[in-house]
């Protein structure tokens, strides 16, 4: 079975500042991979390259066997069209640090928008889908609420429901709890835990080591755009090999 995500020798720089150097990574279907590392280590950039919110300077990326950033036909590659890119992106859910909910729309509208716009679902079906997903994340009573009237934890769960509405094969989480008050972190992590139990393939950037340890199948430690070390939570948290990993973990644990 091909990997759900394959990242092959990806490099990227912002101007003269390299953020990713020759990064390779495979994520299997149903696997939860957690990216850890200090700020500026390239975790978020790597995540954003996978759904092409950032372009790569070198290297190739596939999601579910489909090349991202170019289109491959019979072994030949050509630049991808906007429609192709949109189609590929629609199968990859993303959850953002600052939620990025559409502030002029209710919870229900936030979730129902993409199915209508991208999948051309009729609005009755899209509303039913949105209602079901909001119930799933525990917000069945907030359908008509605007984001500004909701707590950060509620907003982030709507963000998750919005991403799930496109029935993605892969979910990317970019520090989903970093902007939350401590007492709201749990509700978002619970939602993510449930998702992983359902078999969703997930790549998660987080600073919550407890979550990484409990839900992660594999932990990757990034520094200066390189994956310095990776392993099971057990290996990484109890006997990290790389001195830089040890130093980082001793600071955050």
């Amino acid at each position, binding site marked *: 079975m091909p990997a759900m995500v394959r990242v092959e020798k990806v490099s990227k720089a912002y101007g003269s500042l390299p953020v990713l150097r020759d990064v390779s990574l495979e994520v299997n279907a149903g696997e939860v991979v957690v990216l850890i590392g200090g700020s500026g280590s390239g975790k978020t950039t790597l995540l954003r390259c996978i759904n092409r919110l950032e372009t790569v300077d070198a290297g190739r990326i596939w999601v579910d066997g489909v090349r991202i950033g170019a289109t491959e036909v019979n072994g030949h590659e050509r630049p991808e069209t906007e429609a192709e890119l949109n189609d590929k992106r*629609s199968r990859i*859910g993303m959850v953002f640090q600052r939620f*990025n909910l559409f502030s*002029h729309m209710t919870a229900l509208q936030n979730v129902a928008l993409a199915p209508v716009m991208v999948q051309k679902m009729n609005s009755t079906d899209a509303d039913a889908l949105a209602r079901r997903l909001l119930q799933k994340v525990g917000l069945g009573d907030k359908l008509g609420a605007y984001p500004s009237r909701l707590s950060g934890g509620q907003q982030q769960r709507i963000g998750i429901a919005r991403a799930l509405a496109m029935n993605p094969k892969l979910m990317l989480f970019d520090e989903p709890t970093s902007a939350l008050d401590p007492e709201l972190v749990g509700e978002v992590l619970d939602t993510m835990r449930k998702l992983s139990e359902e078999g969703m393939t997930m790549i998660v950037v987080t600073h919550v080591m407890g979550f990484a340890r409990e839900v992660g199948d594999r932990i990757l430690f990034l520094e200066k755009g390189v994956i310095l070390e990776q392993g099971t939570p057990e290996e990484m948290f109890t006997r990290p090999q790389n001195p830089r990993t040890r130093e980082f973990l001793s600071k955050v644990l």
Partner: protein
Amino acid sequence: MDYSLRLHVVTDNWVFLVSGIYATLAVTLGALAIGVALGLPTGMARLSRRRWLSMPAIGYIEVFRNTPALVQLIWIYYCLPILTGINMSASVSCTIALGLNAAAYIAEIFRAGIQAVDRGQVDAARSVGMSYFQTLRKVILPQAVRRMIPAFVNETVSLVKYSSLVSVLGVADLTYQAQSLSTTSYRPIEVFTFIALVYFLICTLLSYFARRLELRMAVSD
């Protein structure tokens, strides 16, 4: 100073005076329509990273913002027909000129409004697979427009006032009618005070409705 007010000059001729409102509003609304229709793409082009799009937009905006509106009006009325051979009535020509002028300002309003929308909104819309235009239409513009309302009302109010310039080219707007009445009646104080009041009323009403609209749209913020 012995000047006694003769208000009957206004009351006897108010139909004549007020008939100018028609031209004033027609020019204003026409120019506004042109301004919005042209201002949005110009503002978008101004924001583009492609220089062949942004440079002409910047040039257009700068030319119209840095030359007097009256000169633009006169230029388009007298010079454009010579250059293009297209003859237009004064009112059409003036509406187009004011519309082109308004477009430059409205482009800047759109640009500022769009730039004020959080970049994360675009990321979120694109990440679920929405296209650039879908994102623009469903996510960016609805949020930008809310923020633009005050600036947009400002522009509309100044357009109402600028529309008085068309009287110079003989378009029978409020100001033109007032000038005619003032020359025939020799009562400038009554006549011009009256139309100033009319302009004041139009502009105040506009601001009032805009404020109510703003409050109603603020529900989601």
